[in-house]
């Protein structure tokens, strides 16, 4: 990976140098030739980065009772990622939000379900599917699945065709119908905002995992939300999955959502 990056970088650099005439090329060679023993630049991951073979999440809904219980997580997420608070419902942008059982688990609802579940608000977010329909649909690879299972958006590359929104069976994606900046109350300077015309969604706090921090929602959840490696039998998520009955959203579609709910 690092090697190919270096190579493509040198390629770009070389081509650019060629375009500027031969002197700069000679300069570059002279410079690097003079200090032959100097190591080449490297790119690497932060030592503190949290890594997994396949990231997953378990949400213990027994620990929630009302909408108020979910607000800290939603707020933490939206604040961290500069998610705008648009008043026009059509233009709403949501990474993490709440909805009722019958809307979240559309294939499993029935009339006589007990009152707790019927009225309990559930947290909804991108499922970081194993076989994500959105990734299949995207014509530019602007949305892609990382080796560790996280489904990400490259906001630089998105052309705003919204094919991914049609392809997502969970309604997890939002589109910037207008410039989001005026609707962000407090900007988090450590994370970019988006521009109009691109799609966005939960990024599993990839930027926080990269520096050794847990996702913002997990941090704010008092242990009700847990993330970890689904392929590591010793991980906390696997322990929770072993000892509790869990459900996923629309498993019959075969997308393989990585978010599990204890009910």
């Amino acid at each position, binding site marked *: 990976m690092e090697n190919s990056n270096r190579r493509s970088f040198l390629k770009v650099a070389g081509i650019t140098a060629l375009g500027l005439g031969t002197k700069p090329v000679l300069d570059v060679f002279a410079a690097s030739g003079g200090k032959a023993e100097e190591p080449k630049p490297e790119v690497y991951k932060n030592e503190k980065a949290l890594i997994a073979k396949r990231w997953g999440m378990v949400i213990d809904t027994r620990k929630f009772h009302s909408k108020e219980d979910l607000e800290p997580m939603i707020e933490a997420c939206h604040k961290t990622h500069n998610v705008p608070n648009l008043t026009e419902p059509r233009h709403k942008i949501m990474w993490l939000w709440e909805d009722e059982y019958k*809307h979240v688990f*559309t294939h499993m609802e029935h009339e006589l379900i007990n009152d707790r579940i019927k009225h309990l608000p559930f947290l909804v977010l991108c499922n970081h599917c194993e076989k994500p329909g959105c990734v299949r*649909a*995207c014509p530019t690879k602007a949305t892609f699945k990382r080796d560790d299972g996280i489904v990400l958006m490259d906001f630089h590359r998105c052309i705003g*065709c*919204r094919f991914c929104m049609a392809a997502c069976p969970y309604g997890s994606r939002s*589109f910037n*119908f*207008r410039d989001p900046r005026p609707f962000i109350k407090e900007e988090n300077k450590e994370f970019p905002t988006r521009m109009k015309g691109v*799609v966005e969604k939960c990024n599993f706090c990839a930027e926080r995992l990269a520096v050794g921090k847990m996702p913002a929602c997990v941090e704010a959840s008092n242990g009700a939300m847990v993330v970890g490696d689904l392929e590591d039998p010793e991980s906390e998520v696997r322990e929770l999955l072993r000892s509790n009955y869990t459900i996923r959203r629309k498993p019959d579609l075969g997308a393989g959502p990585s978010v599990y709910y204890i009910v």
Partner: protein
Amino acid sequence: MLELALKGDRKYWGLVIVLLTFMGVGFAVYLKQLDFGLGITGMSRDVSWGFYIAQFTFLVGVAAGGVMVVLPRYLHDYKAFGRITILGEFLAIAAVTMCILFIIVDLGQPMRIFNVMLYPTPNSVLFWDMIVLNVYLLLNIVIGWNVLEAERNNVHYAPWVKPLIITSIIWAPAIHTVTAFLYCGLPGRGFWLTAILAPRFLASAFAAGPALLILLCLIIRKFTKFDPGREQIQSLAKIVTYAIIINVFFLLCEVFVVFYSRIPSHMSHLQYLFVGFHGYHALVPWMWTSMALMVTSIVLLVIPAARKHEGVLAFACAILFIGTWIDKGMGMISGGFVPNPLHRVTEYMPTLPEILITLGVWATGFFVLTILFKVAVGVKEEVSGVKDTCESC
């Protein structure tokens, strides 16, 4: 040959000016959309594709429909259509032009459109749609131009054009099939998740495309010295008749499967479109109008006496075109998004700016069509001036 488009009477220039005006208005509103974002449309988080993509879908059908004059001419050697194949090819050029424009106006970041080619992604149907549409456009430009030029010079077109023509005949169903695949391969969108979507698209395409062509032929006959021919129009009418019957039949197949199986996620969309869903019924009158128009057109078209009467035929074609347009241009796309995957209803209606941009694109298409048809008719008039009967070419 383009110089033929520079000489015309007042009616011709009047039409050109009207179309240019609509294009100008549409462009101005589009600049506003570029500045503000797609928020000026009626689209939403739940209905993320609207009028633009619906027009695109409908027009891919019109473009593909052009093949219904090319195919009988070249595969079945039906000589009568030789007179009007050029009209089918030029209609396809105008329609694909509109398709491409509708895709562009629908993009959130149109200046990044070349990312589709910079990062080619074969698993995305949109990538393939881009390819098939552009190739189809190119094929029709090359074929149409060469064949017409040959006709003007009173020679046979170059031999290398023939393989391109055969390719274009295969290509036409391909463009609409790939367009249907945009929708019918999406998990969790019950309305589109049906193998009959591509056949349905093709049936409505082969009805709407030739119906428009019949209307255009009648207009050409009325306003120019070129007569596309009674036999040609009647043959097209038969194609339209079969296609619209098959289209309605496919729809009824869909209705049976959905309502006999009673799977809610498939049923809810048709319920929303035809009877309303949880108190939301914005599209119900539209859908029934569409049904009524399509069925009426079938009745008029299957009765030979009615079909042979050109006034009745024109009326039938007009209502058929409107009916299929409502079905695809209004119901097909937003119907698939309502209710959303979380079984919530957000209704969709295009806004005024959205309609103006749409009109602008349609005007652009008809501008291209007017110019091309003017050239084609000009050549036809020239040729018939030289040689009164030109049945062989």
